[in-house]
């Protein structure tokens, strides 16, 4: 289960400023002692190992290069219970899937620091000859074994570990030669936990971001990434971007320079393109306000994160279109899914197919941009008008300290996340899809989004209710959760429905 914060640390007040070196030294020693494989972590040796890797295996460098060249990289997700299964998966994704970035997703026991349960999962999976875990138990295998995975591929490797408790997994992953790590204080605490407080989540990711600066001091630029997809369920771009801005502000206080932001696709071409552009601009705007002019903030676009259709042909359309959305939006990378998504975790082959479908779509969409479109400009400007009042209020509530402001803002519902499992999140804000397929806010609850903006959202949603002959109520939000996974007989029937 979630570890309680060590006593000494709890005594320190929460602050956004960088953890002092001597304090961090003690924190690391205590952290690494929590599981036997922690003893394998040797920072100087690990930094030297990273420096020995060729450029094509360093994600920090690859992301900068892709951004400079206007490329959209492809990366899947994937993790299995045993080292052998994981190695085979990563090689298939690298060679058959042509993945530009190769992932290792950890299993949910590891994410929740239940390493004893993870061990049982390894043992049972070995006996059964199939994976009973939904990811790779990185901490149980440790640095030396996990490094063989990095050595089995020719691309950079990234750790995907949906958790508010990344302290030990990040130590093992980075020491093993992974050059990227996905996860952030706000996004993962509100999306992947029930009882972890926002404060604990912030402290845990301050640890991870502080660790990255130790590598930086040794000449290794690691990539950090923020999972702005949140609960993956109809997250309007503005809410995702609010968490991106707050998380990057927290990370740079610890000294991080290479920090990506992820946005789940809304599946509306113009809204997604506007969101990608607005996210980078708003992050840079707020970074400049606190004096940071040298932070690299590439955007990653994610294939649909809500419920998927069972029909593999329909799923195939979401995959290809997702490549199109990412490429036209100007994302530096896209994270892919497969036609098995509705059923669960894909086979390595299905996963590799998802990558190739996406790659082809990216190829076809090269050099198309929407910047000249009025509707694109309207949406981008709208996102700015939604994000700024909320972020300004959060910063004001913290008296200039983003960590303190974030905790207070969630308590007050000023920051709110749809469909959150976390008890500290009000989760009263409700999104719904409008008549044209844009994600809008049906109920802002206590979020300080300006009246005129909300009037626009309401007008668009009322139009949908009217067209569908439905009441203007919260059912609009519930049916929006299911919409994309409905069968074609429902979404686009023949004969055509009468208006």
């Amino acid at each position, binding site marked *: 289960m979630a570890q309680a914060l060590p006593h000494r640390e709890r005594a320190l007040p929460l602050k956004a400023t960088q953890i002092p070196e001597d304090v961090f030294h003690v924190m690391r020693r205590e952290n690494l002692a929590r599981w036997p494989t922690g003893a394998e972590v040797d920072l100087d040796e690990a930094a030297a190992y990273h420096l020995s890797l060729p450029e094509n295996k360093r994600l920090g460098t690859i992301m900068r290069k892709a951004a400079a060249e206007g490329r959209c990289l492809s990366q899947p997700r994937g993790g299995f219970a045993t080292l052998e299964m994981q190695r085979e998966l990563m090689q298939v994704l690298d060679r058959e899937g042509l993945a530009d970035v190769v992932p290792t997703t950890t299993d949910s026991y590891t994410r929740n620091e239940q390493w004893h349960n993870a061990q049982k999962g390894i043992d049972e999976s070995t006996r059964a000859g199939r994976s009973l875990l939904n990811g790779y138990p990185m901490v149980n295998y440790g640095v030396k074994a996990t490094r063989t995975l990095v050595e089995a591929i020719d691309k950079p490797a990234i750790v995907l570990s949906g958790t508010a408790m990344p302290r030990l997994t990040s130590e093992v992953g980075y020491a093993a030669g992974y050059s990227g790590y996905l996860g952030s204080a706000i996004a993962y605490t509100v999306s992947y936990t029930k009882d972890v407080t926002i404060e604990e989540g912030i402290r845990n990711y301050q640890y991870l971001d502080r660790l990255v600066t130790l590598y930086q001091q040794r000449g290794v630029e690691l990539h950090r990434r923020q999972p702005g997809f949140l609960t993956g369920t109809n997250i309007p771009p503005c809410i995702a971007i609010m968490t991106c801005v707050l998380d990057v502000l927290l990370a740079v206080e610890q000294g991080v320079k290479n920090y990506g932001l992820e946005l789940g696709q809304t599946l509306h071409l113009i809204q997604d393109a506007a969101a990608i552009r607005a996210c980078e601009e708003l992050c840079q705007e707020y970074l400049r306000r606190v004096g940071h002019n040298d932070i690299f903030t590439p955007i990653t676009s994610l294939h649909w994160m809500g419920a998927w259709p069972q029909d593999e042909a329909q799923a195939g359309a979401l995959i290809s279109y997702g490549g199109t959305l990412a490429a036209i939006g100007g994302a530096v990378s896209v994270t892919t899914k497969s036609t098995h998504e509705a059923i669960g*975790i894909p086979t390595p082959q299905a996963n590799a197919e998802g990558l190739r479908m996406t790659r082809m779509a990216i190829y076809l969409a090269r050099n198309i941009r929407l910047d000249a479109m009025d509707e694109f400009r309207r949406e981008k400007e709208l996102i700015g008008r939604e994000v700024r009042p909320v972020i300004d209020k959060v910063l004001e509530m913290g008296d200039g300290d983003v960590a303190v402001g974030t905790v207070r803002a969630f308590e007050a519902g000023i920051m709110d996340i749809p469909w959150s*499992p976390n008890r500290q999140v009000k989760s009263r804000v409700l999104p719904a899809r409008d008549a044209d397929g844009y994600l809008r806010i049906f109920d802002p609850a206590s979020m300080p989004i300006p009246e005129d903006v909300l009037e626009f959202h309401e007008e668009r949603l009322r139009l949908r209710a009217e067209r569908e002959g439905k009441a203007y109520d919260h059912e609009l939000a519930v049916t929006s959760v299911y919409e994309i996974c409905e069968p074609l007989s429902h979404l686009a029937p023949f004969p055509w429905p009468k208006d």
Partner: protein
Amino acid sequence: MTTERAPDSRPKTLVTGVIGADTHIVGNRILGMALAKARYKVINLGALTPAEEFIKAAIETAADGIMVSSLYGQGELDCRGFRDLCIEAGLDDILLYVGGNLVVGKQPWPDVEKRFLDMGFDRAFPPGARTDAVIETLARDFAARAQGLRRAVE
């Protein structure tokens, strides 16, 4: 969504939540909303709920059934021994439902269903099952129980 009533006048109490280390809350929350609309008393334990907490809540609320959600693939590990825990707690005959993406990877549904029924669940629902179907089955099962049967016959 239908608003079928529970068959007898006393509202039945159902404990629900997402089992294990799983945080996929959306489907479970929508199921909870639909059950409440169908006049069930719903005790929603939310995400990340250990098996023991379902049973504790079922005892405390004298529940008529437990509805377990799992979407992350590890449900097969988390649900093992669930019926045994119920029996140890004196809830030998409590109605047990499970639903979601219950195993890792694409496996034939009849095999998966049998695995969970063998574990002692009364019903298992496949990926993508809708709340209407669950509520309809619940009504039939409670009606069968009023007749002294364990559950409705297909």
